[in-house]
Structures are given as structure tokens and as C-alpha cells.
């Protein structure tokens, strides 16, 4: 029989053992009787010679090797019986644990799905990203930059260790077939799908010969876009029109195929794009990823690509001189979510810890009253190891039962949590309660079971059994008092950390909400606007087209005013440019940066941005007039101090300009926009919180200036700018109700101008503190749970401790103590525990505040008022929890109490 069979057929084994030994004794005694010994004596001798059937049985059982499992099952059964016998204790303990493990499991599932799981590609560990690094501001702001397309091609050619592919983020208007729609475009290397190791859902990848300038336009559709726009029909081989160009559809990307966290609508070959910025080495727009070839290591690839980068730096000193190329493992790009998730996991662990401490103190109370039982078992021969194991088994059973309920809570809770996340949680599709999460939950349950079972287990008596057995349970209570107060104090301390954090978040949210965003956010509609591709192709028509758009929109009923702008406050996107107040510019890294925004004259009116001095733009500010800018008061202060900024000049080398010597065809434009010419400050406007209510104060670049859209030079810049422009509309009615009429009015002559990415300014402002609000809600819940659990803990411990002291209190009352003084005594005892906890908790809270300050934008320093408020709340609640035990103590009848002893 195998080990498993022996374990499984335990009862059968026992029966057979009994029968076998019985047979032996019977035969032996029959033999003895034949020799003339009395039957009774014969039986006794037979037993004696066998060595006592029970002992032999024990030895035989040991031989089976299944002993520890049987003991475990026995302990578990015993534990379950104990739990059933104390339904009150069991319910509280299980609920507490279920809350703790449930919340922790949800958070872990999210952390696991979003942060820990590898990318959903085959052999994801062999995928790498290639980035460049320079001394320019992009590197400083983001830590790394993408790669110039020619640099990618050189790497592709020279690398022996990597298969490389690039992707360029872009967009365009698809005008055929169906309704015109703005689509999210990725221009990709032909072998991108191969490098990632994914197969297309239908059709084929791009061919290498299609990844070159002048090849026939081909397109792969994203799966969701294909289902949404084409209804999932077979469209391979049909043609679509994107930005005036006709493409043939050759494939459909696999479902849920996400590149850098986004599922694109359409893909085209990167090599067919002949835009100047892409063919030069000075712009770095291409995301590059690669797969290690068979046998190659990451270190090899890093060395190789680094070397190629050095060669390029020598060869193209002006563009690549200060630029390195580097390789790192490709990781999911989840942005700022990372620190927030760890923060929440930390907070949730505190709740779990409180739950554990709570159950530990409940268990300890029981352990003290069970001391005699355990001492009795020790006296009967149970080893200390055996008793400790039994205690731990009991708490493990409790832990696992609580964990099981917790996991079912997590099953229910995980979806609302992901939905509640402000904005969209990256990689939300990867969040599942799978075996990893279940394993984690099991681990947490067992670990917490072990943790809260340890204190009672270590109290298992071994020495001085006699004393324990002789003494009544009550006289022993004193020895556990310090441990109990310790538990309560640490619970309170943990609760203080959570409460103070929640208080700080609440205070922050109030402060942020009341901040002046610098503009009137109500009744403003914001949408990106794509001009007709035909217009964009002809730079001479662009300015007039914008004019027409604004004009038509102005006549839609409900529109109060309208303007066009390239970067909208509190939305993604910004344009940071270096500036200087004299013509002798320092090197780029020394120039202060400002946010540049190009606007049409009505922008300030639409946004209701206050004018501090000077004037806003007018229709007179044109290409052929003085180049003007409006700065915000932050920039004015930063650049000119208390001096009046009006009439001052700024040199801004990276503004859209055309150096006259570079004028390609000698047009008047090139003469007009001279990059060395400074910009005249004509107005000072109020500061606008571009980075959102929460983040603006911490932002690296806060200074702002505006320049007239009319002064953006054609041809190249105007087209590029036009692709970025949004319209902002101040309305008399609910902003979103105008979306339909505006869309209709702005379609353009060829019915292919679209509005997309529609927001209201209200929404953007509110979203800019959504994370803080979300955290406040969660921390509020955690803190509430912590408060509740601590109160339950205090109540339980005090009820237990006063219960133990009944005879003592009885004597006191008999000797003349008043009920009030007895109550006071219990309250003092409770207050001592609470204050110790608060003291320790405040130290922890100061550290938590520091973590919060680093993680959450807009957090102020720890403030005394909210801290005092939450601590008053905590002490109040804790004293309330002590009230019932205190009153019970004061009403003890001395006669009953003394008689009971």
C-alpha cells in the first residue's frame, strides 16, 4: 500500500491491526491453556508477552509514516469543535480576518496584474526596450528618450544579438469607408509582430519590401477598431482612406493586442513615412523594442548597442554627440500608478495587521482561560512541541477559514475597485483572481494564523505545571495583562497611522478643491479638432480653414465664445521651451523652461483668464507684424522680479521659426520669421494650473507664455500645429449638449473634419484631483475599519480583564469603593493603553505622512488640526468601547463575586 492509501484507508488499517493482534493473543493463550494454565491467567500472560496491545499498536502506527497527518487532522477537528463551541468569538474573529485578508487579496490581485505579471507576449523575459539618453530636457524630465529613426535602422543593421522593431505614435482621419473618424495610428516596422512573437488574427504582416519609401500603402487594422468600425467583416484586400491616402488592408491584429499599454486603431509601415523629422537624427520619436536572439544575453545586447551608439556619436557629432543608446528589459509601462498601488497595498497590510492583532488578543484571552486544560495535557504526557503545534493548528484553521471568506469578499470586491480607479487603470485586463492570487491569499491566511497564534502558543505551560494546576484561572490573569495592553496599544497605533493619513488626504482634498485653477472651469467644452486632410495637405488653405471653423462655431446657438489652442490646461500634453532675457543665450541645459501655448485671440475670453497688465492678442497680431507674447505672472516674476514685464523681450530659440538662411525656396515667410529675433511681451496674465489642481505646485516647469496661432509660420509648422489644435468653447448651456450641433456644423465641405477627445473643463479639473479623491475614499474606508477593529479589540480586552478581576473588584466594593471610582479605574486602565498607542502611532504617522508626501501630488505637510481631530475621534470611540466593561465592573455585586471564588 502506498503512503496515500495508508492514509486514506486509516480505519481499515486500524481494524486489521486490531484483528491481527487479537488473533495472536488468542492463539497464544490457547497454547498456554493447553499447557494447563487457567484461561484468565493465560490471557494475561499472552498480553504481557506481547508487550501490551496498545503500545504495540502505537508502534505499528508509527511505522505507517502517516502519523503527523493524523495528528494534524485530529488537531484540526478539535479546533473546529472549539470554534463551534464559541460562536461569538468565532464570528468576530472570522469577520475580522475576512475583512483583512479580503482587502489585502484585492490589492494584491491588482498589484500582481498591473505591476508584477510579465507582458502578455511569449518569452516576455527576452524582450528589451532600446532608449536613448542625452543632456537635453527630455531626458531630464522622463529619464530617457525614444530613438531617431536612422539610429534604429543602423542598430537593426549592425546588431548581432537583437531583432529590433520600431513604432511611431501617430493619428489621422479615416474618411472611407463609413463615417469619418479620427483614428489612433501606429507606424511600425514590418517585423514588429514577429519580434513580439504574436500572430495576426487574420491576414498577414507587412513585408520587408513594404517597409520602404514609395512602396504600396498597406494597413493592418486593430482588432477592436475592426469590430467597431467594420463590424468584424472580412475586409482583407479592401481599401480604406486615411488622411487622403488610399491603403489596402492586409491584416487584422490579434484581439487585445496592446503596445505600450494601448490598443491602436490602425497600423501602417513606418518605412513609408518620409517626413523630414523622421528621416533626420535630431528628433527622437520612435519607440524601439527588440527580442534577444537565441543564445544572446542581455549584457551582450547592452554592450553591443552601447557601442553602436558610441560609433554614431563619433560619426554624427552634431546630432548624436551627447547621446547614448541603451538596452533594458521591456517592462509594462504603468506610469505613476506604481507608487499609488504600493501605497495602497501598504495601507491594506496595516488593516490586516490590526485584524491579526485583534484576533491574537482574543485568542490570548482564551488561552489564559484554557491554561489549566493545557497544563493537564502536559501533565498527561503531551510534549511542549505537541501543545504548541495544537495551538498553531487551531489558529491556522481560524486563519484559513477567515481567508476563505476573505477571498469570496475579494471576488465580489475586485471589479468595483478596478472600475472606481480614477482614469483607467493600466493593464486592468490582467487583473484576475488566479492561482497566484489564491496562493497569496492562502499564504497570508496561514502567515496571519501563525502570527496571531504564536503568542497563545508560546504561553502553553510546560514548567510549574503543578502550580498552574493548583491555582485557579483567575489568579493567573495578571501575567497576561501586559501582553493584552500591548496588543491594544499596537492596534491603536496602527489605527492612528491610517486615521492620520486619511485626515491628511481629506485636508489635502479640501485645500486642492478650493484652489483657484486660474481660469473659470464651468461651461467650457474642449475637443481636439482634425481639419480636413485635403486642407492640411495644402498649407496655403490652413489659416483660412481655422478661421472658417471658428466662425461657423460662433454661430451655433449656445456658443458664447470659441478659440483654438494647442495645449489645454489639465489635459495631457505640453510644450516646454527654454527662454532668456538677453540675446546671449547660455547653453540649452542652463535656460529656464516655460510652457508655450499657441492660441487664437479669444482664448483668454473663453477661459476667463485674468489680465494683470497690458493687453491680450488681437486680430492685428499677424505673421507680418511684431512677434508678441503674453506671459503669466509666474514667468514675469521669475524673469523680471518686481520690474514691469510689459515691453520687455524674451529670446526663445526653439519657437516655430524659419531661419532666413535656411529658407528652402526663398519665400517671404522665411524672411519674416527670424529665429534670432526676440519676442515682445505685451501682456501679463494670471497663472493657470496647467498640471492640474494637485500637481501644479510641484511641477518642474510652471512658467507660461502664450503666442498667437496666427504667428505660427507656414508651411511645415502650420501643418504640424494644426494637427495638434483643439477648440475650446464657452457655452451658455450645458457644454456637452453642444457637441452634436458643433460636430454637424464643423464637418467641412468634404465632410471629413472631426472632433475627438471631448471633455468639459469641469471634468478635467475634477480629474486632476481624482487620484487624491480616490485615495481619500480608500484610506477613509481603511481608517474606518481600523477604528472599528480597534474598538472591538479594546472592548474585548477590557471585558476580559475586568471579568478576570471580578473577585478583586468585589472585595474593593465590599470595602467601600464607590461604583464611580471602580468605573474610573477601568477608564484609567483603558486610557493608559490608548495613550501609549496614540504616542507610538504618531511616530508612525509622521513616517506615513512622508511616504504620502512623496507619492501623492499636492500633499501638504502634516498639520496639527486634522491630526488632533482624528485622534480625538479615536480616543472618544475607544473610551466608548470601554464604557460597557467599566459599567459592568461598577455594578458587580460583592456578595456574588466573593461567593463565586
Amino acid at each position, binding site marked *: 500500500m502506498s503512503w496515500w492509501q*495508508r492514509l486514506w484507508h486509516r480505519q481499515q488499517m486500524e481494524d486489521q491491526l486490531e484483528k*491481527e493482534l487479537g*488473533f495472536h493473543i488468542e*492463539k497464544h493463550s490457547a497454547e498456554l491453556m493447553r499447557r494447563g494454565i487457567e484461561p484468565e491467567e493465560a490471557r494475561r500472560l499472552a498480553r504481557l508477552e506481547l508487550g*501490551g496491545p496498545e503500545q504495540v499498536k502505537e508502534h*505499528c502506527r508509527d*511505522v505507517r509514516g502517516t502519523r503527523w497527518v493524523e495528528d494534524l487532522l485530529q488537531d484540526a477537528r478539535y479546533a473546529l469543535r472549539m470554534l463551534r463551541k464559541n460562536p461569538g468569538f468565532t464570528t468576530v474573529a472570522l469577520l475580522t480576518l475576512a475583512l483583512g485578508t479580503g482587502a489585502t487579496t484585492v490589492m494584491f490581485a491588482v498589484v500582481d496584474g498591473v505591476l508584477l505579471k510579465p507582458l502578455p507576449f511569449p518569452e516576455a523575459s527576452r524582450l528589451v526596450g532600446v532608449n536613448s539618453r542625452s543632456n537635453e530636457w527630455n531626458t531630464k524630465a522622463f529619464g530617457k528618450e525614444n530613438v531617431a529613426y536612422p539610429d534604429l535602422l543602423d542598430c537593426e543593421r549592425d546588431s548581432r544579438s537583437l531583432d529590433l522593431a520600431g513604432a511611431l505614435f501617430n493619428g489621422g482621419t479615416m474618411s472611407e469607408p463609413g463615417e469619418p473618424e479620427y483614428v489612433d495610428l501606429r507606424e511600425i516596422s514590418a517585423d514588429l509582430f514577429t519580434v513580439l512573437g504574436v500572430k495576426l488574427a487574420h491576414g498577414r504582416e507587412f513585408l520587408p519590401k513594404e517597409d520602404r519609401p514609395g512602396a504600396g500603402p498597406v494597413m493592418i487594422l486593430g482588432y477592436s477598431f475592426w469590430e467597431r468600425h467594420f463590424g468584424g467583416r472580412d475586409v482583407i484586400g479592401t481599401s480604406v482612406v486615411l488622411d487622403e491616402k488610399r491603403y489596402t488592408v492586409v491584416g487584422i491584429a490579434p484581439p487585445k493586442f496592446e503596445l505600450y499599454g494601448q490598443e491602436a486603431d490602425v497600423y501602417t509601415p513606418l518605412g513609408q513615412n518620409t517626413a523630414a523629422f523622421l528621416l533626420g537624427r535630431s528628433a527622437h520619436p520612435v519607440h524601439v523594442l527588440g527580442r534577444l536572439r537565441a543564445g544572446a544575453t542581455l549584457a551582450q545586447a547592452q554592450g553591443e548597442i552601447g557601442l553602436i551608439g558610441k560609433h554614431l556619436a563619433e560619426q554624427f557629432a552634431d546630432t548624436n554627440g551627447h547621446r547614448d543608446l541603451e538596452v533594458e528589459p521591456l517592462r509594462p509601462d504603468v506610469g505613476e500608478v506604481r507608487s499609488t498601488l504600493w501605497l495602497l497595498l501598504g495601507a491594506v497590510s496595516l488593516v490586516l495587521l490590526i485584524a491579526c492583532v485583534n484576533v491574537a488578543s482574543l485568542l490570548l484571552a482564551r488561552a489564559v482561560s484554557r491554561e489549566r486544560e493545557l497544563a493537564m495535557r502536559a501533565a498527561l504526557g503531551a510534549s511542549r512541541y505537541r501543545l504548541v503545534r495544537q495551538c498553531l493548528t487551531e489558529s491556522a484553521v481560524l486563519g484559513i477559514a477567515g481567508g476563505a471568506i476573505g477571498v469570496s469578499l475579494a471576488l465580489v470586491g475586485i471589479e468595483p475597485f478596478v472600475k472606481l480607479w480614477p482614469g483607467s487603470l493600466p493593464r486592468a485586463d490582467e487583473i484576475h483572481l488566479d492561482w497566484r492570487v489564491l496562493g497569496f491569499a492562502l499564504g497570508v491566511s496561514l502567515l496571519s494564523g501563525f502570527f496571531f497564534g504564536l503568542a497563545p502558543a508560546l504561553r502553553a505551560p510546560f514548567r510549574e505545571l503543578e502550580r498552574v494546576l493548583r491555582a485557579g484561572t483567575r489568579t493567573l490573569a495578571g501575567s497576561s495583562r501586559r501582553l493584552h495592553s500591548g496588543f491594544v496599544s499596537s492596534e491603536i497605533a496602527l489605527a492612528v497611522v491610517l486615521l492620520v493619513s486619511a485626515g491628511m488626504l481629506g485636508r489635502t482634498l479640501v485645500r486642492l478643491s478650493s484652489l483657484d485653477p486660474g481660469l473659470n472651469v464651468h461651461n467650457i467644452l474642449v475637443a481636439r479638432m482634425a481639419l480636413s486632410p485635403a486642407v492640411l495637405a495644402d498649407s496655403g488653405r490652413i489659416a483660412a480653414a481655422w478661421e472658417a471653423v471658428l466662425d461657423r462655431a460662433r454661430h451655433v446657438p449656445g456658443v458664447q465664445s470659441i478659440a483654438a489652442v494647442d495645449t489645454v490646461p489639465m489635459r495631457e500634453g505640453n510644450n516646454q521651451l527654454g527662454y532668456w532675457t538677453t540675446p546671449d543665450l547660455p547653453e540649452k541645459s542652463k535656460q529656464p523652461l516655460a510652457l508655450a501655448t499657441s492660441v487664437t485671440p479669444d482664448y483668454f475670453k473663453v477661459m476667463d483668464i485674468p489680465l494683470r497688465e497690458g493687453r491680450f492678442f488681437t486680430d492685428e497680431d499677424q505673421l507680418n507684424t511684431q512677434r508678441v507674447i503674453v506671459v503669466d505672472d509666474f514667468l514675469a516674476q521669475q524673469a523680471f522680479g518686481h520690474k514691469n514685464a510689459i515691453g520687455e523681450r524674451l529670446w526663445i530659440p526653439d519657437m516655430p521659426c524659419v531661419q532666413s538662411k535656411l529658407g528652402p525656396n526663398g519665400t517671404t515667410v522665411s524672411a519674416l520669421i527670424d529665429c534670432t529675433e526676440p519676442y515682445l511681451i505685451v501682456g501679463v496674465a494670471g497663472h493657470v494650473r496647467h498640471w492640474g489642481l494637485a500637481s501644479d505646485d510641484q511641477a518642474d516647469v510652471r512658467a507660461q507664455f502664450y503666442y498667437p496661432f496666427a504667428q505660427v509660420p507656414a508651411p511645415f509648422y502650420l501643418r504640424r500645429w494644426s494637427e495638434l489644435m483643439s477648440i475650446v468653447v464657452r457655452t451658455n448651456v450645458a457644454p456637452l449638449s453642444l457637441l452634436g450641433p458643433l460636430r454637424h456644423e464643423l464637418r467641412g465641405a468634404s465632410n471629413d473634419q472631426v472632433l475627438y477627445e471631448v471633455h468639459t473643463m469641469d471634468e478635467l479639473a475634477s480629474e486632476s484631483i481624482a487620484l487624491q479623491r480616490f485615495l481619500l475614499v480608500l484610506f477613509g474606508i481603511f481608517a474606518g475599519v481600523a477604528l472599528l477593529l480597534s474598538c472591538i479589540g479594546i472592548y474585548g480586552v477590557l471585558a476580559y480583564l475586568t471579568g478576570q478581576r471580578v473577585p478583586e473588584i468585589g472585595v474593593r466594593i465590599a470595602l467601600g469603593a464607590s461604583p464611580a471610582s471602580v468605573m474610573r479605574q477601568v477608564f484609567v486602565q483603558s486610557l493608559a493603553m490608548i495613550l501609549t498607542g496614540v504616542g507610538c502611532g504618531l511616530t508612525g504617522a509622521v513616517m506615513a505622512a512622508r511616504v504620502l508626501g512623496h507619492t501623492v501630488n499636492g500633499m501638504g505637510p502634516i498639520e496639527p488640526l486634522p491630526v488632533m481631530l482624528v485622534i480625538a475621534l479615536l480616543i472618544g470611540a475607544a473610551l466608548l468601547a470601554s464604557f460597557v466593561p467599566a459599567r459592568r465592573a461598577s455594578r458587580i455585586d460583592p456578595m456574588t463575586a466573593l461567593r463565586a471564588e
Partner: protein
Amino acid sequence: MTEKSDLPQGTLDLLILKIVALGPVHGYAIAQRLQQVSRDVVQVPQGSLYPALHRLENRGLLTADWKDSETGREAKFYRLTRKGRAQLQTEAASWERLAEAIGLILRISEGGAE
């Protein structure tokens, strides 16, 4: 009555295997056989017989069936498995080698070694 010696360590298993090798046999018969063949010289505590039998069974050297005994009562009869037979042979051989070697040493006459 001569003084009985304790059974040397590990030899109980060997003896059991040998006895069982003679044919299917139940525990009590093994105990008796052990006593007979050892002519009351070696002390075989009956209490350690059954754990040893079960251990050998768990290790797959013995297997057992329930059959009617000579008295008509069902008893557990042990048989040698193929693995048990091989084990018996190797253990018996090594025991004989050991006994021979010890015998040799003991036969050396004192002072005779030069």
C-alpha cells in the same frame, strides 16, 4: 537456564524474511518459529515483531492476505515479494560474510600472531 542474548541490531528483519520465505505464514506462527529456530537462545521481544512486519510490508518486501487459519479464524498471512526475496539474498550473504570474518578473528590463537 542459559542467559538469552539480545538480537543484534537489524537482524530481526533478516530472520523474519527468512521465515516468511519458507511459505505464507501469520504473525503468531512467525513468533513461534523464531523462538523454535533460535532454540531459546536469542530473545525476540514479541512486541517488536508486529511493527517490524508492518515496516517490511510498507517497504514492499512483504505482502499479506487475509486467509482462514488452521483453526478456521481469519488471519493475516505474510508472503515474500520479489523485492523481498532479493533483499533476503543480499542480506543473508552479507551476514554470512560478516559472521565468517568475525569467526576468523576469534579463531586467531593468542600470541600466535607473528
